[in-house]
């Protein structure tokens, strides 16, 4: 029973971070109809940056994280401006370009950061006794707290600000929104940057637990894609629910079924969703 509760807690912690990462993909898909195949590579880069800023610049863990996410945000803006903008209206080329970019980044990381896993220092040490039943690492609890905070901040931004209203309007109906005076180019730019920053946020939060290597990005991207399809493309609430489901299924499945196929569960979910409910749990987009 204690074991079960621990796997459950693990599932929630990981699931929330999956949700955070998937929100970035969902934002970009909803606004621009572009899937960023370099999503996982940006996640990794944020992890490397947070480790680098902490060790080379001597920043504390929190300033290093903020600086890393800010750097990814700027990188996302540059990507949109130089690479994605010329592909507007041609979904195929944006897929090809972001896929090529992910290969470039993987190989560049190999040369710059080396093949060995890297991680920033932990924010906190020790462990807490949860429910009087088992001990759980404080670092993981802190990750959960920060991730919940970032997600809450994102939903506040979405529902309480002018920018959020514009984002929701454009993802509902792009043409009507631009007729009402929304500048679609600016919204695209900001949405892409913000989507990348969310990948970065997930990266800096999870890197202290799971160190990064140059090639783990494919798995990160795929996880985010599965969550987005499960939740329903363009649905933000769906990302949170989908992330939690995937986190729980993976952790319980790995514990009780077969740990070698941990990432297989995500694929099984993807197939089931496509078969039974292709629009996802909360998807509204028509076929």
């Amino acid at each position, binding site marked *: 029973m204690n074991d079960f509760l621990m796997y459950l807690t693990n599932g929630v912690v990981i699931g929330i971070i999956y949700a955070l990462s998937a929100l970035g993909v969902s934002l970009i*898909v909803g606004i621009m*109809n572009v*899937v960023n*195949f370099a999503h996982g590579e940006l996640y990794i880069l944020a992890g490397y940056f947070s480790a680098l800023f902490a060790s080379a610049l001597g920043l504390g863990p929190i300033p290093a994280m903020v600086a890393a996410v800010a750097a990814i945000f700027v990188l996302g803006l540059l990507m949109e401006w*130089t*690479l994605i903008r*010329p*592909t507007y209206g*041609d*979904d*195929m*080329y944006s*897929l*090809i*370009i972001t*896929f*090529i*970019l992910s*290969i*470039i980044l993987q*190989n*560049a990381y*190999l*040369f710059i950061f080396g093949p060995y896993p890297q991680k920033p220092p932990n924010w906190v040490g020790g462990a807490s006794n949860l429910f009087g039943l088992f001990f759980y690492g404080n670092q993981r609890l802190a990750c959960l707290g920060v991730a919940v905070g970032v997600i809450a901040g994102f939903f506040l931004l979405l529902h309480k600000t002018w920018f959020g209203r514009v984002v929701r309007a454009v993802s509902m109906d792009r043409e009507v929104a631009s007729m009402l005076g929304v500048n679609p180019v600016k919204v695209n730019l900001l949405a892409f940057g913000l989507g990348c920053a969310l990948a970065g946020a997930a990266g800096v939060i999870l890197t202290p637990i799971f160190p990064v290597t140059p090639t783990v990005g*494919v*798995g990160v*991207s*795929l996880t985010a*894609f*599965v969550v987005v*399809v499960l939740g329903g*493309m363009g649905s933000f609430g769906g990302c949170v629910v989908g992330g939690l489901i995937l986190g729980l299924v993976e952790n319980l499945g790995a514990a009780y079924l077969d740990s*070698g*196929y941990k*990432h*297989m569960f*995500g*694929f099984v979910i*993807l*197939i089931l969703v*496509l*078969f039974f409910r*292709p629009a996802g749990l909360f998807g509204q987009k028509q*076929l």
Partner: protein
Amino acid sequence: MTTRHLKVSSGRQELLPWLAVLALFLTFPAWLGEYWLGSAIVGLFYVMMAASWNLLAGFTGQVSFAHAAFAGVGAYTSGILAVKLGLHPLLGVPVGMGIAALLSLGLGALCIRMGGIYLSLTTLAFSEILRLVINNEYQVTRGTMGLKVPFILGDYSKATAFYLMLAAAVAVLLIIRWLLKSDLGLMFRAVQNDEVAADSLGVPVTRIRVTAFVISGAMAGLAGGLYGHYLTLITPHIPSLDLMFLVLAMAVIGGMGTFVGPVVGALFLEVLAEYIRVWGEFHVLIFSLVALGFARFLPGGIVGLATAWLARRGAPAGKGGAA
């Protein structure tokens, strides 16, 4: 990116350059030497891969990331049948091709009705899952050690492998050529250019897209099976995303949406790879940067450049590399 031309010109005069190239290739085993003959075999494998990927991406507008995975399915199916049941590779390769076609039918039927993005996501996931299965089921697949399989036909000879690969590549190219000129090819381009218009004119959009996906997957299975039995060691490199990237880069650099582009791109990158091999692992980084440059600034690829250059010189269109 409205600069992509989807013309498939016809006429007998354009056949001549192809026959000349084929005649040149037929003489390769006589004078090329063992090392470069090996490169030529690998080059022909990539010609099949890039041309069949381009049939899907360049002519129906669907980006699959499972093309290398289907080649892996072909290679591992035929390889495992040969090792476990002693099936002759020449029988095993068609079986592998059939399994690749069946899997692409399943994947395609599942996700293509949801639109292009879903196909890209699902094929990427499929490719990753295949990697996991190959690594986890190492008793059958030998995992990263690689599966030792018999040579394709008789005693090991690069000339045999070369002629078989050449025959397969010519067959694949002829089929693609024939498809593009048929009514089916017309419908391929209809669903790429304007899916709503095609639908309203009674083109069964989803069925056409799935058909293209299955044909292209079967061709990848054939290429992979032959390649595996040429290497005699099937490793997870065949179904890897690295190989997938190379195929994509060849089509993009050669010129997507043209018939000749992927052929030019595949042979060009394979020869280039031999020359920059000394730079070791840098060569993937260089390829990816070049591919990004082409995708961003020259979506017509080398063939697009050549066509524009010929047009500027006032040469008759449709001749030489302009096909």
